[in-house]
């Protein structure tokens, strides 16, 4: 896939987005968030605070959570980007997505993509985290609707489910 037209001052970057190779002409100042949303049509990452506080724009860069609103698209060249759209590529929901549905951890939904991706990085490192571990990990991702209770419960439940599938007793 190729997006954006070449023009003076633009640079071409190649990266992998949700498992697919992508080449895109960007202006050096462009933010990863704008390139994902406006050029690649991946609108799951949301713009909110613009100052790396809220986490609504979170995507994974080589598996690490970053705020796409404060990351230059140029920094993503040659790297793997995962957005919420890539978490269930074959239409089968990720256990976190299932748990968010089951626990009503979703309200307006604006924080949900970033929240799920941030939680996914925890489950990568800590299988079956405790309530307190989840709470600490999600400190940098705001939600104004839920009061966080159901989000944390959903992440704990997803962690347990994934751990029991991966390591059956």
């Amino acid at each position: 896939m190729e997006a954006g037209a070449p023009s003076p001052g633009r640079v071409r970057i190649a990266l992998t987005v949700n498992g697919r190779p992508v080449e895109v002409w960007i202006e050096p100042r462009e933010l990863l968030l704008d390139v994902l949303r406006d050029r690649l049509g991946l609108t799951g990452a949301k713009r909110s605070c613009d100052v790396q506080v809220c986490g609504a724009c979170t995507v994974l860069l080589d598996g690490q959570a970053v705020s796409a609103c404060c990351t230059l698209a140029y920094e993503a060249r040659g790297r793997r980007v995962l957005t919420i759209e890539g978490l269930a590529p074959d239409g089968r929901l990720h256990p976190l997505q299932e748990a968010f549905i089951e626990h009503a951890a979703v309200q307006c939904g604006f924080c949900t993509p970033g929240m799920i991706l941030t939680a996914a990085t925890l489950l990568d490192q800590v299988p079956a985290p405790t309530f307190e571990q989840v709470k600490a990990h999600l400190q940098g991702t705001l939600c104004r609707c839920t009061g966080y209770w159901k989000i944390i419960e959903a992440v704990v439940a997803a962690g347990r489910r994934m751990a029991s599938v991966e390591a059956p007793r």
Partner: protein
Amino acid sequence: MSMTRPIVGSPLRRVDAAEKVTGAARYTGDLVVPGMLYGRVLRSPHAHARIARIDAAAAERLPGVRAVLTGRDLEGLDAYYGHAIKDRPIIALDRVRFAGEPVAAVAADDEATAEEALLAIVVEYEALPAATTLDAALAGDAPRLHEGPLRPGLFHGLGELRREEGNICYHYRFARGDPDRAFADAGVVVDGEYTFPAVYQYAMEPHTVIAQWGSDGLTVWACCQHPYLVRAELADLFRLPLSSVRIIVPYIGGGFGSKSYTKMEPVTAALARKAGRPVRIANRIVEAMVTTRRHNMKCWMRTCSTRDGVVVARQCRIWLDTGAYADNGPRVAATAGDAAPGPYRWRAVDVDAWAVYTNTPPAGSYRAFGAAHLSWIGESQIDALARKTGLDPVEFRRRNLLRPGEEVRPGGKPLDADLVGDVTKVAAAIGWGTPKAPLVGRGVSVGLLAAGANPVSTAAMRLQADGTAVLLVSTTELGQGSRTVFTQIAAEELALPPDRIRVMGPDTHFTPYDRSTGASRSTTLAGKAVQHAAVDLREQLLDIAGGIWGLPRAALSVRDGAVWHETEALSYPDLIRRHFGMVGGELIGHGEVRPQRGTGSYAEGPVFWEVCVGGAEVQVDPSTGRVHVRRLASVADVGKAINPQLVEAQDEGATLQGLGNALFEEMLFENGHLVNASLLEYHVPTTSDMPDEFHSIIVENADGPGPYGAKGVGEGALAAVPAAIVNALADLGVEMRELPLTPERVWRRLQDAGIRTGEIRSPEIDRR
């Protein structure tokens, strides 16, 4: 009528959840309209100034710039709007009244070009004296923000608008009994002055609007809570018939009142009109913060009781800073006035509430407005009376609270909740009466919020030839779960599986009128309209089946998507086919709610009393003044929980917002300029601010006017929590009269109360 397993009352999974967890859900900012330009807004750097000159020529010449809108472009229009008071121009005309007011707007091929063009616009201002605080605006020699009589807006709902003096935007007053005499004779009196800060709603999605003009009129995609009210204001501004303005509302990324009424829609529509192309304006957070906010307030209140603890009278004066334009200030003042007495059996009450213009960003609705302002003040005085009369605060409330059916305000709806039962439950949940650790205090609070706004909602339901249904209703989905609750109501009434029902989002060309989405009204009112629509469809189906079988309605019932007579069944698709005589066709059910309909409870106002009942257990750190919230409890007194999981979710969210409002949220203004204008400086609650424990207690007494006895939820906890936390501190001997309860403020009061590290002064009474 009901299916084997009732759908109403069950935790049906949210119908919008799958779209939201996969990133497929579309919000206004995710949409691209063909040919769309990107708009940015130039905002005033002055709190109050005359605009001497605007020169946009250089900006207009920049490559990629398609239009620059200034006040000059509005000549020939009556460019003022405001649902309560028509005091706000689409864009500044000759004067700016707050720092952040739109002065010009640019439409360009992309946002970066539009942003650059803003820098090329030259504006010459002549600064005017500014009144940037309540005290400054109320002073005798204060500069006036608005001259001449105030013009009522399309939805002022305030009765006769009086001509107010100076910078008074609106005055609400009610009184009964003889308060002066009551205070003169009173056994015990408490008296105090209080302040409440400006607060930012922080809906995560900032205001975003797309406007497009065409031969069929004006189409607007917006994250607005009340599409029909926005439609009316746009039609009025641009002199269009209602049928030529179309408002479409995708999913909304949180509202909490910040997207109620008309916000960025007029300026976006005016810019698109000038550009001759569709334009999107998406506020940044710093802009959202100066678009609307919660009213800061100062208040004086006194309350008296007899020596043996019977409440007698309350007097209250409330000054609410509504900023440069009224927005919803008049309604906030009226609701604050209504919340001031609290749900007690008074012999005399005397309340004045003023909304006051200042040169600060306009203040409007924020979840639980009025009650959040007043509950903590009134309830702290109730606790003070309890302490002075030697009574336990819960017992004091039991003796004085109104009972169901008692009058709350003259001519209004009588109390429709069991407050004594509610407060007993929260007290138990926070361990009332059990031993406390050092520096731990407990408090409860009880309040009422006039809920429901205006009782007009309509809905339509289309039953398709295959037995699936489309529900048309203009309630906006901003996270509260209305589409899920409506699905449950319709499924229950029509005996259809919920997955056969699709709820459409608002599109004013197709989904019927709903007055607004706010004031906890949607389940109660739009839900009732949905129920009526589904019942209408059911009756049509029964009549068709009755005609076929030659039986009356009473002999028939619906179950599992079919009409039944004893063991014979006709499925809905069969009935539609038989009715139309061929494959195809559909049945349409209609439902409406209006004040005249039903038991009369709508006409009295409010639609229902939303309870604000909370409990808090806190621990203070005497060396820093930091308040640690150990336990919170709230009562969701909902009449009937149509979806208990969503009720809990509302309560949990409102509680954490209440905690933020109580402990640290505050917009700081210096000479009218917002100082903490980003989320780096304005702290929104994170997981680290959660209480250690939270109990949401669902009470179902079927005493609401909505479907199945339901009434709304989602605001009460936000008013109850600050009040309960303030009372928990008072339990430690620390009386707070200023929110938020920052560590510094609490520490200073701890010093005043003589509580230093390791020392605890016994409160005047401690029976808990």
